[in-house]
């Protein structure tokens, strides 16, 4: 029951660790804001986008996909079984988008002009489309998360009203997510001469969407298991193996898609060329796709929480590697031809750690003060 949240302790070694990261990271954010991009990052003319775009934006948004996957399962496909995980999934998505939006805010040269695209439309630009989606979808996620807020402050009527109109909200959210996840892939359609052929493909938008769904399923399952450990809350095995079955479909489909892209593009040989790119490509495929797929096909894995957790970690790491490959490693060859290389500075890492730590902290905070984890079980 809802009393569970009172058992969550705020003062634990983990919280302390998070606070230390947040404070240390805040210093790096301050440096970025006061000294500028040149002094605090390794970004340069021949490598204008780095770790923040790769991890915070591309990674953060992919990690947030769990929100729309679960929202559409519960509210569009009427799979009520997943209702207990809808709130944490949507909350994670909200935090993931905040991570991405903060990443963009710090990355752009004029943070305080971040609103410009909203008024200066340019529909030929994927960046414009991405920006508009971040704004609208973050609002939708806030609405999707609002019932627990209204519940908390005692506005039961409002809570019930928002829950009644959840279906159209979820539908809208799913629509925006489909477009947004795929348009992040479409960002790279304009660089056929720069991005390595192992990753450049006209199917980039589609492969970003499918891999985001994979990532979303794994993130939700990963989180349910973690929160059951940390917050002493029971994870529902039937939900976890249901998510695992969903993952098999998504990963299987992604596998076929990636092989198709490889064969119709640079060919099988490119994956085994022995270059840095080919190794990273194989790593991404092994960690994010092949190993998880094989493991999930074993019934013993699907029925063990520990093994599912491991598979989730593989998928999450694998897809993050994919995003890094597209946004950084796949572009390095071109930069190196122009005599430059890129590796993030300590400051860049610290800013990202700051955002991640803040996200986890806020999640914990929300679990403590709102009815996040034990919602929906009551009725069953």
């Amino acid at each position, binding site marked *: 029951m809802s009393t569970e949240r009172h058992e969550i302790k705020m003062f634990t070694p983990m919280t302390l660790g998070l606070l230390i990261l947040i404070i240390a990271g805040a210093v790096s954010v301050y440096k970025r804001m*006061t*000294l*500028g*991009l*040149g*002094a605090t990052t390794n*970004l*340069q*003319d*021949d490598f*204008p*986008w780095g770790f923040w775009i790769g991890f915070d934006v591309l990674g953060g948004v992919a990690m947030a996909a769990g929100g729309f996957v679960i929202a*559409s399962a519960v*509210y*569009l*496909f*009427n*799979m*009520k079984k997943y209702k207990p995980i809808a709130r944490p999934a949507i909350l994670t998505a909200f935090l993931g988008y905040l991570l991405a939006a903060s990443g*963009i805010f710090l*990355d*752009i*040269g*004029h943070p305080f*002009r*971040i609103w*410009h*695209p909203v008024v*200066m439309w*340019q*529909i*030929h*630009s*994927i*960046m*414009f*489309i991405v*920006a508009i989606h971040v704004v609208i979808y973050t609002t939708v996620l806030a609405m999707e998360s609002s019932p627990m807020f209204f519940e908390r402050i005692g506005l039961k009527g409002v809570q019930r009203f928002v829950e009644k109109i959840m*279906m159209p909200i979820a*539908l809208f959210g*799913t*629509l925006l997510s*489909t*477009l947004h996840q*795929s*348009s992040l892939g*479409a*960002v790279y*359609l*304009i*660089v*056929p*001469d*720069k991005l390595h052929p192992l990753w450049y493909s*006209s199917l980039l*938008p589609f492969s970003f969407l499918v891999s985001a769904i994979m990532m979303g399923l794994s993130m939700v399952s990963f989180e349910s298991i973690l929160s059951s450990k940390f917050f002493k809350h029971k994870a529902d095995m039937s939900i976890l193996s249901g998510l695992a079955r969903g993952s098999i479909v998504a990963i299987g489909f992604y596998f076929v898609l990636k092989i198709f892209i490889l064969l119709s593009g640079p060919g099988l040989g490119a994956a085994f060329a022995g270059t840095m790119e080919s190794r990273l490509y194989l790593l991404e495929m092994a960690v994010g796709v092949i190993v998880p797929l094989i493991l999930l096909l074993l019934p013993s894995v699907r029925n063990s929480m520990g093994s599912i957790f491991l598979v989730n970690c593989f998928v999450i790491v694998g897809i993050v590697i994919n995003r890094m490959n597209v946004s950084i490693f796949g572009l390095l060859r071109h930069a190196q*031809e*122009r005599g430059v290389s890129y590796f993030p500075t300590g400051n860049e890492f610290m800013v990202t750690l700051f955002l991640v730590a803040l996200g986890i902290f806020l999640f914990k905070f929300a679990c403590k003060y709102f009815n996040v984890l034990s919602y929906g079980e009551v009725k069953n």
Partner: protein
Amino acid sequence: MGTNAIMEKTATDPAVRKMEASFLIDTTKCIGCRGCQISCKSWNQNGTDKTTAGPTLTNPPKLNSKTYTNIAFYESEHNGAITWNFSRNGCFHCKKPACASVCPVEALVKTPEGPVIYRADRCMGCRYCMLACPFNVPKYEWEKLSPSIQKCNFCYDRLLAGMIPACAKTCPTGTIQFSDSIEKNLTEAKKRIAENPGKYHNHIYGEKEAGGTSVLLLSAIPLDQIGHAKVGDQVLPDLTWKYISGIPAIIGVVLAAGIGSWVITRRMKNMDKEDEQ
């Protein structure tokens, strides 16, 4: 005068309005005096830079936020003798510029007269233009707290005032030939190649690159040997537009699928309940 103000003060001279600004840059004529580099700096009031010359004396070694154009020096062997090859870097003012197509706020725009210009007050600094430009032209003021993109603007202000760009004006050897028609320059380039067998590498860089550009380059040796990347003939903004123009269809499919599955799965749930009763 800011480029924004220039844009608003549309040229009144009908000759300027009909113009399709173009350069034909015949690098075989270049003597490496770097006059264009200097006059560009003066006209655009771009400060000096502390630089080190590259191994072949290119100085500054690359374009940067204070250098819209530079002359790159390359050595090559030609019929047993070492020769210098001078190449000019700068914006190509693409006919369908990738930089302008990706800019979310229309800070970069293709003007009707041909130049691709930048309006700093709109730019939010996402740097997508830098990623998208196949020629790596836009540069950033990394060291500044309020940074802008910097790149050649084809001396748009001069063009509107009836003058030719500063670099072309300065060039003592006729390497940089300005014309108000890309077609005219293209014809001239083809003529030079045809009339001087063996003098030119048979490729007009910019004729087809990135769907065609306003700046055309001629060279004695293959252009990738003088620092010009191989760029495909694809009109780059089209690649993105294929996706964007598909968005209405995606919206339709997702809405139909979403509503459809909601109706069906709800109906199925109800049937289950009825069966139980």
